[in-house]
């Protein structure tokens, strides 16, 4: 399993992929992607929030409170998607031995954890006026909570290793184990939920007006853009930290100081 990058290079001939698998080459590209995504995120969020909070009609059952779904639902989706992305890069790193893949996983984890916290917190804010309690053990919220535990576990494991290479591979393995478990956990929690509560009120189960849907879509894209920007930023920081003795980085710093 521990192949070096040069050995893998000989087997796979995709030059574009291998060129950008080097931290030195990807670093400037990451910067460009980050800038683009910050701009997109701000613009889309502005439009989406305006539509969601001022344009979309009042909900027949829930009044104004429902508007929190424009943040809650995209956050929950991102929490899920980011975990899958993290597991994907973990897998790539373990199979191909590219250290940039591990760095990407590390960069994604905190954003994913934040997304799950935002989803849980906005879920609580929604729950209070709607159902009377801040927390309801419904299947999706509970699964998001467990996802949060998986994120924290990943970050804690990565942080507990002094040897970075070992830490990368160990946390990548645990990310994969978690990814395989997530559908199992979700299914079990759904079962458990119906067992104990019968039918439950699900957030977002009512049909939505077109403006609401559009606003939701825009906010989803805004969240995507934000998460990519944040991940790229963290990735660049991680690259700087790990490659601090590399020649290319010292050159780049000299250029920047001039």
């Amino acid at each position, binding site marked *: 399993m*521990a192949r070096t990058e040069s050995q893998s290079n000989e087997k796979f001939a995709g030059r574009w992929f291998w060129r950008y698998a080097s931290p030195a080459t990807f670093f400037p590209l990451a910067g460009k992607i980050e800038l683009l995504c910050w701009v997109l995120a701000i613009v889309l969020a502005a439009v989406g929030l305006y539509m969601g909070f001022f344009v979309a009609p009042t909900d027949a059952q829930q009044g104004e409170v429902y508007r929190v779904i424009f943040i809650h639902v995209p956050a929950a989706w991102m929490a899920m998607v980011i975990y899958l992305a993290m597991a994907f890069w973990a897998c790539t790193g373990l199979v191909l031995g590219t250290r940039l893949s591990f760095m990407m996983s590390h960069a994604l984890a905190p954003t994913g954890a934040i997304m799950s916290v935002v989803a849980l917190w906005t879920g609580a804010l929604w729950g209070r006026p709607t159902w009377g309690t801040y927390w309801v053990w419904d299947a999706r919220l509970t699964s998001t909570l467990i996802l949060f*535990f998986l994120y924290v576990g990943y970050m804690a494991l990565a942080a507990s290793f002094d040897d970075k290479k070992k830490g990368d591979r160990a946390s990548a*393995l645990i990310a994969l*184990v978690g990814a395989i*478990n997530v559908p199992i956990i979700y*299914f079990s929690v759904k*079962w458990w939920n119906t067992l104990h509560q019968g039918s439950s009120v699900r957030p977002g189960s009512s049909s939505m007006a077109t403006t609401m849907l559009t606003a939701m879509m825009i906010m989803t894209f805004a969240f995507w853009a934000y998460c990519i920007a944040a991940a790229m930023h963290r990735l660049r920081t991680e690259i700087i930290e790990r490659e601090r003795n590399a020649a290319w980085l010292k050159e780049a710093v000299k250029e920047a100081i001039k």
Partner: protein
Amino acid sequence: MSLMRATSAVFRRELQLFARRKSDWANPLMFFLIVCSLFPFAVGSESERLKLIGIGVIFVGALLAAMLSLPRLFDEDARDGSLELMVTSPEPLAALILARVAALSLALGVALAVVTPVFALFYALPFDVAVMLALTVAMAVPTLLLVGSIAAALLVSARGGAILTAVLVLPLTIPTLIFGAGAALKVFYGESPVAELALQAAFMLLALALCPLAAAAALKISTD
């Protein structure tokens, strides 16, 4: 043939060690007892209320007690160097780990399952519920040890390994917890627990198939 010899040697050794050191089984059992005894102090001693929480408390207590034994899977061997004997063995590492976990599950699972009906008395649970609880604990302990072996392998000799192992492993044991306790709950309400039992058994078998391989990969990563 040599595979049979190697796995039975690992199995036998684990049981020998378990038998020779009293703390290996006494400590988890004492922990289980203490945890189950703590809750009535917190929620009051009315038997009606205790009956409702009893199944959950006992099941979680058993899982936590089993989790305490996870570090002994690999840590001691790492300290005295015999872990390297396992890693450099020509036999497949996954099979050796499976033998190890199987022995520990047998010893610990039986011990915890046998005392479960006794603790069920604390919570005024009827006898059939206690028996079902013992059965599901007997299935949950191997599942937890199998999943936990991956974390134990990654955290061999790590500082603060026990707590971090708990943080990593407990979320992954939620399915077996849901269905194990769910089966006992069904018996409590007089319904059939077959579905929950089947699902818990399914998870145990899935863990049996996949976890030794992951744990072998994990062990190779941490002994590098």
